[in-house]
């Protein structure tokens, strides 16, 4: 075989897309032709280097902005789609009546369009949903009333998150569980309707940090073996509507710990009976997804400074009260680690201020002792400098 015949087929030879008899012919030729062999080797080299071409990854903020920009453009197009129809209809009408759609007509149409269309592109629309709540006998279906999102102060990176009094007053003090089975403490096996956020029997101090895995034991009778299921629980956004089955622990007692609203995620349960927990509304799952995505990105980051900025950014855009508390707790954890590692005055000051600014939220999650210990630690660093 001549080189002229071989060369055009070398790429396909590399792709292994030629019939075996052609492959054999090419191989035979390559064994005797250094020039063609060099060509093949060059192609292999270039193509293997393609994987070495790396691109700088866009910043974290970029990934937050992209969906917003796209949704804003989609919403804008949808709002103005009737305008295109209108102008199209005007043109059609003008042409039907034999009128020249000339300059004056165009100006008139433009004036109408500008008058009627007020494009509103907002980057951070708050969402308020109103749905009815129902309760079934076997499974508790929870649908939520989500209050209007409170105003979120703008944050600059590095500044502690201010918390306004209004927001503080909205922190949930009751817990309701949307489940189809009671959650049991793994030690006592007693059914638990309400539980405290820092209860180590179920959640532990790191429970608000990540997805929680709870062992749920369904006891039928003493003769039956209990089935153990591992389920995940997660907080659902703040709601004022508690299903009637679950009475609030306390609404006015400031000494009681602040509890949380949780729901069971039964999607990964191996065996289940009953209808399970119905799906929550999209806005609820979106809020949860945003938090989990933030958590995932934080975990992937190896830099404490970056983790801090990620949580600051999250708090800057998340207005749901329940998830803000989680964000605050996580950010406190990172600031603490930074102060512990550096023992620097600025870091200790920043952490100290942050803890004081979010005292109520953090005390509820760390407990009084945990909170006071951390505060004392930061104080000791500050005094040492």
């Amino acid at each position, binding site marked *: 075989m001549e080189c002229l015949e071989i060369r*055009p087929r070398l*790429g*396909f030879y590399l*792709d292994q*897309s030629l019939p075996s008899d052609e492959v054999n012919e090419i191989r035979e030729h390559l064994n005797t032709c250094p020039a063609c062999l*060099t*060509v093949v*080797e*060059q*192609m*292999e*080299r*270039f*193509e293997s*280097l*393609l*994987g*070495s*071409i*790396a*691109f*700088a990854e*866009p910043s974290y903020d970029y*990934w937050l902005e*992209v*969906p917003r*920009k*796209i*949704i804003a*453009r*989609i*919403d804008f*197009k*949808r709002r103005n789609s009737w305008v295109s129809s209108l102008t199209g209809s005007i043109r059609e009408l003008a042409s039907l009546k034999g009128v020249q759609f000339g300059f004056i007509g165009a100006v008139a149409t433009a004036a109408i369009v500008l008058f009627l269309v007020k494009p509103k592109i907002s980057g951070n629309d708050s*969402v308020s949903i109103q749905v009815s709540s129902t309760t079934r006998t076997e499974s508790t279906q929870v649908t939520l009333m989500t209050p209007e999102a409170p105003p979120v102060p703008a944050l600059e990176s590095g500044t502690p998150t201010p918390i306004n009094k209004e927001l503080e007053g909205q922190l949930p003090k009751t817990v309701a569980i949307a489940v189809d089975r009671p959650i049991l403490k793994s030690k006592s096996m007693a059914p638990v309707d309400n539980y405290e956020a820092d209860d180590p029997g179920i959640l532990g101090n790191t429970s608000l940090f990540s997805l929680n895995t709870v062992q749920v034991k369904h006891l039928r009778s003493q003769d039956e073996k209990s089935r153990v299921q591992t389920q995940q629980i997660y907080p659902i956004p703040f709601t004022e509507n508690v299903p009637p089955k679950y009475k609030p622990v306390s609404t006015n007692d400031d000494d009681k710990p602040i509890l949380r609203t949780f729901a069971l995620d039964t999607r990964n349960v191996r065996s289940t009976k009953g209808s399970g927990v119905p799906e929550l509304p*999209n*806005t609820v799952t*979106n809020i949860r*997804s945003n938090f989990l*995505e933030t958590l995932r990105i934080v975990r992937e980051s190896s830099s404490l400074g970056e983790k801090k900025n990620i949580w600051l950014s999250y708090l800057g855009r998340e207005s749901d009260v329940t998830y803000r508390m989680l964000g605050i707790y996580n950010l406190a954890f990172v600031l603490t680690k930074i102060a512990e590692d550096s023992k620097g005055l600025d870091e200790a000051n920043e952490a100290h201020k942050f803890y004081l600014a979010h005292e109520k939220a953090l005390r509820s999650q760390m407990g009084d002792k945990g909170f006071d210990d951390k505060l004392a630690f930061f104080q000791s660093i500050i005094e040492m400098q």
Partner: protein
Amino acid sequence: KGDSRAFEWIIRKYQKRIYFTILQLVMNHDDADDVLQETFIKAYTKLDTYNNIYPFYPWLYRIAVNTSLNHQKKKARLRALSIDDLDGNNHNGDLAESPSQLFDTEGNELVEKLKDALQQIPPEQRMVFILRVNDGLSYQEISQTMEISIGTVMSRLSRARDKLRTLLNGYLETKDIKV
């Protein structure tokens, strides 16, 4: 059902994968950003054509590849209309991007040359080449993704490889690089 907020979930789920696919094809962030947005907007407007018995990602991928190609062709046309630089040189063939956007992890000069060479290959040939070599798509898959015949896939691939070798050969000879 026209709920753009629900679509936001889809964007968040796929944006990174699609972005990096597009980036490989258009070779710079600014274009990748434009194409990324266009891709999702097109996907949204075409959702009624998506058949949900098939996986979603390949459908979205196809939109991304075709949008990338159209974008690059448009860019090439606009560039062809641009006036020469003041120094009299026509930079239409010079598509080198800011070094801050592209870097190679091994500091390999040949990789830099490869990047430059790729950008000089016509967009439709580059697309086919990257889909085949980088993404490992078969000829059939490339044909379906780009909605061209397999014959066209093979011909563009062959031309891309030839051009790449021609562009890089000169460099290799001057450096006396053995491969």
